[in-house]
């Protein structure tokens, strides 16, 4: 009951904050629009610029029988698919960054901590308040993207690439696990800094490892597969369990109340 009240309070407070609301809406809009527009643009322009596709990529595509347009779309849509893993990392940062430090700056944390709410309930409530919109936004965006992609995909083969099980595992399994990581890291940061913007900026660093994967994939250094998604999910599950336990222990009510200036 108390957890639900905290979630309700967080949402009521956070979604009246225009800055947070903009961030929460911006990422899904951006990550849906970018791949759809890119695919549509490629679809219409590739015939005019035929022959400009790098030879290395083209050779790889020809071995599996893809045309140049199909090849370009599948090549570029791969990194874009990883954006659906960036979203569950970025959105909770915007929400959770305000969760502790925001309460501190408005002096509402002390009355809140003076209620019978336990540290576990507080962290869980604030964590879920940040995680649930992120997961919902990711899943909804992915669904919208799949519908949109159906219209701009050059062929059924391209669409089959987009809808392969690997991406469903990534969005439905790995994304929520990444969200939990992001929430934990951001709440931890938020309980240690004095400014919500600092918490947000530091929290965004949680995206760096995934950005390395995105650029690695674009450079052809890293290959994403179902196996790598499942391994990453297992690793994130272990990390998340450890972080949840650690988060409650690291949340020192006394330190937060007495050492914050």
């Amino acid at each position, binding site marked *: 009951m108390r957890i639900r*009240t905290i979630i*309700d309070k967080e949402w009521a407070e956070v979604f009246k*904050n225009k800055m947070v609301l903009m961030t929460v809406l911006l990422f899904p809009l951006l990550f849906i629009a970018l791949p759809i527009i890119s695919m549509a643009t490629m679809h219409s322009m590739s015939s005019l610029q035929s022959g400009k596709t790098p030879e290395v990529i083209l050779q790889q595509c020809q071995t599996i029988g893809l045309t140049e347009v199909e090849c370009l779309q599948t090549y570029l849509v791969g990194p874009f698919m990883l954006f659906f893993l960036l979203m569950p990392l970025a959105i909770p940062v915007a929400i959770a960054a305000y969760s502790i430090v925001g309460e501190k700056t408005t002096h509402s944390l*002390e*009355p809140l901590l003076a209620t019978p709410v336990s540290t576990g309930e507080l962290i869980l409530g604030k964590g879920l308040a940040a995680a649930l919109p992120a997961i919902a936004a990711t899943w909804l965006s992915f669904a919208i993207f799949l519908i949109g992609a159906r219209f701009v995909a050059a062929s059924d083969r391209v669409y089959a690439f987009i809808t392969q099980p690997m991406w469903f595992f990534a969005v439905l399994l790995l994304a929520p696990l990444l969200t939990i990581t992001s929430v934990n890291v951001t709440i931890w940061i938020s309980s240690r800094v004095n400014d919500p913007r600092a918490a947000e900026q530091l929290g965004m660093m949680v995206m760096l490892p995934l950005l390395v994967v995105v650029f690695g994939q674009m450079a052809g250094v890293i290959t994403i597969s179902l196996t790598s998604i499942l391994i990453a999910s297992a690793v994130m599950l272990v990390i998340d369990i450890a972080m949840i336990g650690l988060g409650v222990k690291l949340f020192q009510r006394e330190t937060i109340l*007495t050492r914050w200036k």
Partner: protein
Amino acid sequence: MIRTEALTKVFESGRKNVSVRAVEALTLDIKQGEVFGFLGPNGAGKTTTVRMLSALIGPTAGRAWVNNFEVGKQDRDIRASIGILTEQPGMYDRLSAEKNLNIFAQLYGVRDVPGQVEKYLRMLGLWERRKDPAGSFSKGMKQKLAIARAILHEPATLFLDEPTAGLDPEAAKIVRDFIEELKIEGRTIFLCTHNLDEADRLCDRIGVFKQRLIKVDTPSRMRTAMFGREIEFRLRRAEPSMIEQVKHFDFVKNVEVYDNRLIIGIDDPETRNPQLVKALVEAGAEVQFVSEVRHSLEEVYLALVTSGHK
């Protein structure tokens, strides 16, 4: 009820290896239904004491019980059984007054949330503004809302940290009247304030505190202990013979004369005043007024804090 035994709080600064003793061996016994004024200068450790007693921070040494629950062992029970008004109102400014109270009523497990919220919003004159964001409220209105938040779950004990600080006289009076109502209801109130007149009017006992407890007593006993009892006799015209007349009494401790006013120090004015009036009249004095000199709590407080400091 609140009881402490040598309650101590030391803050350690890890970086500079410096420790600060915020509260030193505080021993108190505050009974159910008592309004206890906790007075002390800024940085005396009042807020730290309130935070310890409201189970927000742990003591370094000593023990404390609030509503028969022990600090450090039954912290959630303590938090459920007390109400706290912090130094800053700390409302959720984007949310309405009603929403603010709803949230806290739910966190405290109040059964009739809408009923309790309405009761206290009406009692504190905020009902008409219940749908407005708390951020749009004046400081006085925010303070009243914070008081409503502290009392929503009908706690037996209330900790009020500077409840009238920064309020205009009208808002301060509303808050003081409300505290008096809470006192009539039999709640224990631990009141931190710099407003000595307020403490004088509201508190059954006061404790003067500066890192350690300097003195605890009722305001009137503190005055007597500090300054004795003095009676002012205002005469139409004071003559030296009249002064000599009263000095003859062995129960008169001292006599001071200011214009036509005689300030006479005595222990038992209820018994001795008639004798003094009679003697003065016999000496030819025309007595216009007789009243007890009332030293302000400020004088007592300053004397205690200054001597306590030394």
